[in-house]
């Protein structure tokens, strides 16, 4: 059995140090948590769009009160010159950073509970932020490993710990996934940098339908201290990690994922440039996972995109995107725009996105959070630009639909789908059916 739940917590400036934020009602004890945020806050079920808050975005992971990691960036809104910061931590699951490079907000895990989990404020947030969470549990998940990645000094293979990962005798990796995120900072945990706001997010899973691992990455960056806003992005299938060059331009870090043997995976670094630039990962052993991308006509109302014949009974999906077609390999496109989403039914979905607008005189940070879409993007005027929903979710398929047609044709959406092993139909009581 694999369990999945998702939701949001409201992290408010009024919550003083050591305030606890309990999350209940999951119906199971989580084993792995993933968090994402963009800097905007709105209570569920009220959707919101804005061009009035600073970008404070990031991704975090947690598997226990002592095993967690997070990355965070900031890009100030309405700043004459771009003003950005970057940080990562292995002692918090949610983190924010000032443009001067100082940590200025922390959430940590207080406890994993029978029916949920509890967060605790370790540093009061500088602005109200909705933090979305995804939780996985159940007996299928056997191990969760959270780790840090320092960009290597040379290209080629580097191996990372992933407890419980295995290769079958036929040489095929099974039943596992890795989630990635990273920033521009090269500093130690908890020590930020006044640096470009680059953030990457990725998924990888060996897949069950073929031997090639599925993997997707999206990243975006704003060039710190630029007189005219200089923002870029990159989104690619077949890579799990990417990062834009500092000062803007094409990605100069790119990596491929594969499982190499028991209790480890490797990244094949196709490109690297900044030694010790930091990423984090959460590797989950057990469960059924598939990573890849789909495309949708984001500019046509009610157009659909279907992931069918998934080799498991789907329990939910996590999405990433940039409201762009797929990038040419190793080549960025303008606009730092990243969208996050998660869903488990046609009525249970969350999403958030941030656009740091390119080529404007003063910075324009546009944010959206949405409780009725599985993926959403703001316009460059701080309004809703486009939204996608779950139209159908069945035993082994999921269909997305364009609910607000402000996107682009052939729009790229990266996904991580997950679920239970298929159970062969049969008669209860049959000697081979339990």
């Amino acid at each position: 059995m694999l369990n999945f739940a998702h939701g949001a917590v409201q992290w408010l400036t009024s919550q003083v140090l050591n305030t606890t934020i309990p999350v209940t009602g999951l119906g199971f004890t989580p084993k792995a948590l993933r968090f994402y945020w963009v800097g905007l806050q709105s209570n569920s079920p009220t959707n919101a769009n804005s061009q009035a808050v600073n970008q404070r975005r990031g991704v975090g992971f947690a598997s226990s009160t002592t095993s967690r990691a997070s990355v965070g960036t900031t890009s100030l809104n309405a700043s004459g010159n771009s003003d950005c910061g970057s940080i990562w931590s292995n002692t918090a699951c949610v983190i924010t950073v000032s443009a001067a490079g100082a940590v200025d907000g922390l959430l940590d895990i207080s406890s994993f509970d029978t029916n949920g989990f509890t967060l605790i404020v370790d540093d009061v947030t500088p602005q109200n932020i909705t933090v979305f969470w995804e939780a996985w549990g159940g007996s299928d998940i056997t191990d969760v490993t959270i780790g840090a990645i320092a960009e290597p000094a040379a290209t080629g293979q580097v191996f990372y710990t992933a407890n419980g990962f295995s290769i079958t005798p036929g040489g095929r990796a099974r039943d596992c996934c890795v989630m990635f995120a990273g920033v521009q900072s090269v500093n130690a945990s908890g020590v930020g940098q006044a640096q470009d706001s680059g953030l990457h997010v990725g998924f990888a899973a060996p897949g069950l339908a073929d031997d090639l691992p599925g993997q997707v990455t999206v990243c975006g960056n704003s060039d710190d201290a630029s007189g005219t806003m200089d923002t870029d992005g990159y989104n690619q299938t077949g890579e799990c990690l990417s990062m834009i060059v500092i000062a803007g331009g094409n990605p100069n870090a790119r990596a491929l994922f594969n499982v190499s043997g028991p209790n480890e995976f490797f990244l094949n670094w196709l490109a690297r440039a900044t030694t010790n630039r930091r990423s984090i990962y959460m590797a989950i052993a057990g469960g059924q996972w598939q990573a890849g991308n789909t495309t949708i006509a984001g500019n046509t109302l009610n157009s659909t995109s279907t992931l069918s014949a998934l080799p498991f009974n789907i329990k939910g999906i996590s999405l990433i995107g940039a409201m762009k077609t797929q990038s040419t390999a190793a080549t960025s496109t303008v606009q730092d725009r990243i969208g996050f989403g998660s869903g488990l039914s046609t009525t249970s979905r969350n999403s958030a996105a941030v656009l740091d607008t390119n080529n404007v005189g003063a910075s324009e940070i546009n944010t959206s959070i949405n409780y009725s879409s599985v993926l959403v993007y703001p316009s460059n005027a701080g309004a809703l630009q486009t939204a996608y929903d779950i139209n159908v979710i069945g035993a082994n398929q999921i269909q997305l639909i364009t609910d607000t047609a402000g996107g682009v044709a052939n729009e790229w959406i990266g996904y991580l789908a997950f679920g239970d092993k298929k159970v062969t139909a049969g008669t209860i009581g049959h000697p081979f059916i339990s």
Partner: protein
Amino acid sequence: MSYIFEHINTEILDPEVYGSNEEITFKCENFLYYARCFQGILQYVKGEDPEEYHNWPIPPTEAEIQAHEDRRHLFNQDHSIVQDWIDTLI
């Protein structure tokens, strides 16, 4: 095109934590830049905020700001320009 680099100082940053990192501050065309190196190999170049022009209070012209930004991009996309200069310091 060639650039004239004026070396300001070299500061070793917390080598126990970061390994062998160096940050070299240099001036080029009256803007400050910070070259972060790892064991002598350039990792990236950060540029001074154009509002903090080194000749302050004489403000930079728009053309100088644009040239500064173009230079920052160039230094980060082609490390050899600054790396060759750093190599002469060692």
